């Protein structure tokens, strides 16, 4: 199985004729993802990726003609919230929004509308998800992965690559790696992805990679303590040295009013049975220490 993306993924790429969209659509296809459609309003009827992928004017057209069930959005920040709503209205069940820089307040009604429609949104400002050996949706380099059974969920981009590469180098493979995005308002939280991993028979251990700011790691830890007690769990939190009140790049990464500190998150994760690493390179050893045999 794996979660979110896999062999049954039929991917539609919104913004496929743009520079980023075209580049990454090609890379996803090369990894083995079934890219069935692209959407760029006004370019319907064209064919992308060397004649292999039809382009449609609307997501609804693409879904009707190709049976797409997953979307990956590379539309600029001004139009991305609307792109998410269009995918939702067209009946797409799993929507990845890679776009960064979307105004936070735009996402408030959008996540509510996605939720109401029963769809799932990952991101925005996320690297996507990869189920090694099956499919990848987004921009995570395919080369860092190895097939296996550890579920990885992270708020970061390159930090995730670092952690996954360390696991792969140590011979530990992944069921699915999910980047949920670093923005203040995102479609799926750590907790929601942990619930998916808990229900996946092919995921036998968890790695959680968090950052300072917010309370999403703490919330996920509390749920894991009760529901993933027997599953080996390791974690890493970035920002132990970050000063209070300074926004560390991601709109979400800020310690304010003493909340969202690395120390608080590490304590919550340890209390929930996570083995917390001081460096991403320690994650493989900690997974084994937690009882992972793979």
């Amino acid at each position, binding site marked *: 199985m794996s979660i979110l993306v896999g062999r049954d993924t039929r991917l539609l790429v919104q913004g496929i004729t743009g520079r980023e969209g075209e580049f990454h659509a090609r890379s996803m296809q090369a990894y083995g993802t079934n890219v069935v459609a692209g959407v760029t309003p006004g370019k319907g009827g064209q064919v992308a990726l060397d004649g292999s992928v039809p382009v449609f004017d609307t997501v609804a057209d693409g879904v009707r003609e190709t049976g797409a069930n997953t979307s990956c959005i590379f539309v600029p*920040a*001004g139009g991305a919230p609307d792109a998410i709503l269009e995918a939702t209205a067209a009946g797409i069940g799993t929507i990845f929004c890679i776009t960064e*820089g*979307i*105004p*936070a*307040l735009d*996402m*408030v*009604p959008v*996540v*509510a*509308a996605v939720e109401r429609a029963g769809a799932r949104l990952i991101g925005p400002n996320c*690297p996507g998800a990869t189920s090694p050996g099956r499919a990848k949706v987004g*921009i*995570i*380099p395919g080369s*860092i992965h190895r097939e296996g059974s550890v579920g990885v969920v*992270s*708020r*970061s*981009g*390159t*930090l*995730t*690559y*670092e952690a996954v*590469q360390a696991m792969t180098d140590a011979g530990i493979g992944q069921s699915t790696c999910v980047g949920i995005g*670093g923005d*203040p*308002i995102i479609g799926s939280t750590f907790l929601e992805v942990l619930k998916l991993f808990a229900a996946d028979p092919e995921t036998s251990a968890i790695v959680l*990679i968090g*950052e*300072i700011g*917010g*309370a*999403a790691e703490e*919330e996920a830890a509390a749920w894991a303590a009760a529901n993933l007690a027997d599953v080996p769990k390791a974690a*890493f939190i*970035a*920002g*132990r*040295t*970050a*000063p209070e009140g*300074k*926004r*560390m*790049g*991601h*709109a*979400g*990464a800020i310690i304010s*009013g*003493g909340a969202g500190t690395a120390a608080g998150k590490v304590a919550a994760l340890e209390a929930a049975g996570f083995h917390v690493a*001081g*460096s*991403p*390179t320690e994650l493989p050893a900690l997974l084994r220490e937690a009882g992972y045999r793979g």
Partner: protein
Amino acid sequence: MKIQEADAKKLLLAQGLPVPPYEVARSPAEARAAASRLLHGHGSVGQVVIKAQVLVGGRGKAGGVKLASSDDEAEHIADAILGMTIKGIPVRKVLVAPAADIVREYYLAAVLDRGARRILLMGSAEGGVEIEQVAEANPAAIVRIHADPLLGLRDWQAREMAFRLGLGAHLKAAVGIAKGLVKAMLAYDADLVEINPLAVVREGGPGATEERLVCLDAKVTLDDSALFRHPDHEALRDPDDEAPADVEARRHDISFIHLDGTIGCMVNGAGLAMTTMDLVKRAGGEPANFLDIGGGAKADRVAAAMKLILDEPKVEAILVNIFGGITRGDEVAHGLIEARSRQSRDVPMVVRIVGTNAAEAAQLLEEAHFATAASLDEAAAKAVAAAKAARGAA
């Protein structure tokens, strides 16, 4: 982006919120003139308040807020405040306003609640103090009401807030202000619109009994991601409040935060940049900065980042950590080679480049005799050792 009180008040006035009159002065003479108009003009008041305009909290405690009863006193106080430095920020402007005859102070704010993914209206009958203190000492004293994500803040919710704060006698005004805060938040793409204090004041001079609910202070934080659709917000950015390095970083799309250590860090990605800082600290060093060159950085951005790091005289060594995804390792290597040929001083550098085009990068770096490292932990240890060696040699 934080903006000053006077600018925040201007935005709130434009949304129809009740903000008492004020003037902004950049010199003691301007402050005197403003005070004179307020003290002797129509509907004159007995005193004016003079407030430092700086983007840091705790102005009052630092002595940046004072009352004056005469033109002379206003000029004298403005002169003192305009010479102050509050938490490292020199005061260049003061706000002059009629001193309010306060009956009672409240707190009211609209803020983006990340966890709930909604706008949160937050109020307290204990105004005038920092809300964090109230939250700690008496969490029950804070009233929280979430706006509906699709329907917004409804009248009944605003009324509920007013009644729970004990503002029933000022119901219409309180509802207007509560809804106005959310309206302002949406109109300006603000993360936060905070009124502290929101106050019931007596108006009309000594012996008056007419009471009114007004916004005495205002704090607005704008969402940087929304600046593209608010070109007028750029004018609210006060270049005097920003270090030259911050201006330069923004020009190059680099996310940069100055810190106090000696190891300069250049990384792609915010999470990895924080991790690199953490590992420098773990290896016994102190990071000099947070620096994220972003995704897909080309040679020119790398060179600009190098200059930002080297402009800080305390930097004794530089750690470059790049995990190529969208960013190409060879582009970064070219940027580093170019930057080193132009750099103003010789600082030891440890470079780690993995991911996309790492092999090409490794060859370029080797030919240019750069010190490299395979793992992040090794890179951090080498950079800390290089800084120690440089200090020993100096």
